[in-house]
C-alpha cells in the first residue's frame, strides 16, 4: 500500500509539474509579449513598461516560471490586474460559490442516477428499463447550457419561481443561497446523471451475472435481499470512480453554466479574466482548477484501492 501511495503521489506531482509548464507556456510564452497582449495595441508606453516590470518580463522566462510556482506554493497567486486585489482573495470568494454548486449538482446527480440505474438493471428489458435508457440517451445529448436557458425561461422568466441569474450571497441566508444555485445545479446535473445512471445499470447487470449472486439465490435469499445486500454493494465500486471523476468535471465544467446564470464563481472569474486579458488571474485560477481536478482523481484512485484490495498489486 505504501509503495502504491508513493507511486501515485509521484505521478500526481509529475502531472502537476507538466500541467504548470503547459499553462505557463500557453499564457506567458505564446502571446509573445504578455504585457502587450494584456493592454492591447493602443497602450501607453509607460503603462506598458510598468506592467512589464510587475510581470517581471525583464527577467528570464525560467526565473519567471519559478517565481510564479514559488508564490503559488506560499498561497501567493499574484495581484489581479483588473481587480487590483490579490488573486487569493478573489479565489476564496469565488470558491464559496463554485464548490457548493459542484457539490449540489453532484448530490442531484447521485439522487437521480442511483435509483434510475438500479431500477433499470433490476427490471432489465421492462418498460421501466426502456424508459430510463431512452431518457438517459436524450440526457446525454442535451448541452447543459441549452438546458440552462430553457430552465431559466420556464422557471425564472415565466413562472418567477427563481431569479433569472446572479447569486443572492450566503449572507442572505442558506436558503436564499441554495435557491440561486438550484437551476444551475439542475442544468449541470442532467447530463452527468444520465451518464451515471447508465454506468450504474451496466455495472449492476455485470454483478448480477456473477456466481456469488447465483449462490446467494440458491441458498434461499430473496431476490430483493440479493439485490441490495450483494449486487448493489459490489456494483458501487466502479460507479464511485465515475462519481469522483464527475465531481472534478463539475468543478471545472461549471465555467459555462456560471456564465449562463451570471454566477460569481471560479469559472466566471476565469472567463472574465480571459475577456479582460488579465493573464495573472487566469494563469493562477486555471492552475488551481487543474490542481483540484488532478487531486480529486488521485483521491478517487486511492479510495478505489482501499475499497477493492485486489487492485493493490496490479499495475
Amino acid at each position: 500500500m505504501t509503495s502504491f501511495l508513493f507511486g501515485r503521489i509521484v505521478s500526481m506531482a509529475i502531472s502537476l509539474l507538466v500541467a504548470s509548464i503547459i499553462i505557463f507556456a500557453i499564457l506567458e510564452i505564446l502571446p509573445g509579449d504578455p504585457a502587450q497582449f494584456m493592454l492591447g495595441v493602443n497602450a501607453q508606453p509607460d503603462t506598458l513598461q510598468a506592467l512589464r516590470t510587475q510581470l517581471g518580463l525583464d527577467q528570464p522566462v525560467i526565473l519567471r516560471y519559478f517565481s510564479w510556482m514559488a508564490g503559488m506554493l506560499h498561497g501567493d497567486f499574484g495581484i489581479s490586474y483588473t481587480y487590483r486585489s490579490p488573486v487569493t482573495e478573489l479565489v476564496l470568494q469565488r470558491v464559496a460559490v463554485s464548490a457548493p454548486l459542484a457539490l449540489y449538482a453532484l448530490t442531484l446527480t447521485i439522487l437521480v442516477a442511483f435509483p434510475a440505474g438500479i431500477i433499470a438493471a433490476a427490471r432489465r428489458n421492462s418498460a421501466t428499463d426502456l424508459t430510463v435508457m431512452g431518457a438517459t440517451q436524450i440526457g446525454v445529448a442535451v448541452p447543459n447550457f441549452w438546458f440552462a436557458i430553457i430552465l431559466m425561461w420556464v422557471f425564472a422568466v415565466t413562472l418567477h419561481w427563481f431569479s433569472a441569474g446572479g447569486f443572492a450571497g450566503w449572507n442572505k441566508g442558506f436558503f436564499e443561497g441554495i435557491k440561486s444555485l438550484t437551476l444551475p445545479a439542475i442544468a449541470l446535473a442532467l447530463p452527468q446523471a444520465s451518464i451515471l445512471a447508465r454506468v450504474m445499470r451496466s455495472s449492476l447487470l455485470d454483478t448480477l451475472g456473477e456466481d456469488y449472486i447465483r449462490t446467494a439465490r440458491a441458498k434461499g435469499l430473496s431476490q430483493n435481499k440479493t439485490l441490495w445486500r450483494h449486487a448493489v454493494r459490489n456494483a458501487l465500486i466502479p460507479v464511485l470512480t465515475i462519481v469522483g471523476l464527475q465531481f472534478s468535471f463539475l468543478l471545472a465544467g461549471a465555467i459555462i453554466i456560471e456564465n449562463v446564470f451570471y454566477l460569481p464563481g471560479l469559472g466566471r472569474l476565469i472567463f472574465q479574466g480571459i475577456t479582460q486579458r488579465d493573464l495573472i488571474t487566469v494563469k493562477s485560477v486555471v492552475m488551481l482548477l487543474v490542481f483540484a481536478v488532478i487531486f480529486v482523481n488521485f483521491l478517487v484512485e486511492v479510495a478505489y484501492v482501499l475499497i477493492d484490495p485486489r487492485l493493490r498489486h496490479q499495475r
Partner: protein
Amino acid sequence: MSEVSPVISESRTRELLRSALRSRSFVAGAILTAIILLSALTSLVWTPYDFAAQDIPNKLQGFSAEHWFGTDQYGRDVFSMILVGARTSIIVALLAVGLGIGLGVPLGLLAAAVRGTLLDEVVMRGNDLVFAFPALLIAILITAVFGPSAINAMIAIGIFNIPVFARLSRAAALSLWTREFVLAARVAGKGTARISVEHILPNIANTLIVQGTIQFSLGILAEAALAYVGLGAQPPIPSWGKMLADSQTLVSLAPHLAIIPGLAIVLTVLGLNLMGDGLRDIFDPRTRRSRQ
C-alpha cells in the same frame, strides 16, 4: 473484437448490412445523422434566404410559410442559419475527430509495437496527462490566446481526441500482437511498421469507427459550448452555440430562437450516439448479447 479477414468477402458485407438494418438504434441514428448531413450539404448550394441578410422590419417573427423557423432579432431567416450552422458544427467536429485519429492512432500503434519500452511509457503518460486536464478549460485558454475562430476551436477540441484514440488503438493493438496471423507475418519477414499498418490497423478499424462516432458527437457538443461563450466561429458565420447565446436575452419574446438551435444540437448528438451504439452491436454481436 471480432476478427475480420484482410479481404472482406461479399457475404460478410451483406451480413453486416443485414444486421445493420436489424439494429433499431443504428437505423434511427443513421436517419437522424443523414438528415443533419443533408442539411449541411444543402447549405452549400442553397438556403431559402441569405443567412446573413438582415430584414429589421420582419424581426422576431414566429413560424410561417415564408420563414419556416421564424426570424431572429435582425430579421435573419432562422432556417437558413440552422442549415449553415449544421455545416459549421459538422466541419469543426469532423476535423477535430480527424486530428484525434490522425495523430492518436499512429501514436497508439507505435506504443503497442514497442510495448514495455520507455517510449511506450512516455506516450502513455503523456496521454494520461492530457486526460487529467479539464478539457473545456484548456480549450477556452487556447482559443482565448490564439483568438476565437472555428479553426482554433477545432484544434482545441482535437487535441483532447488524440489520447482517446491513442489509448484505444494501443489497447486493441496489444492483444492483436500476440495473435498467430501477426506472428506469421513476422515470420514472413515483415517489419514492425508494415505489420502495424497491414495487419493491426484493419483489425482495429471497427473499434476506431465506433469511437470516432462517439467523439464526433462529443465534438458537436464542445463546439456548441465554445461558440456559446463566443470562442467558436465568428459572426456573420452562424453556429448553433452562438445562436443560443444570442437567444438568451430574447427568450421570453421569441422562445423559438432558443428552442430551434438547441433541438438541432440534441438531434445531431442523439443521432450520432445511437449510430455509435448500433455500430458497436453490429461489429461485435457479443457485447449486444451480454448487455441484454
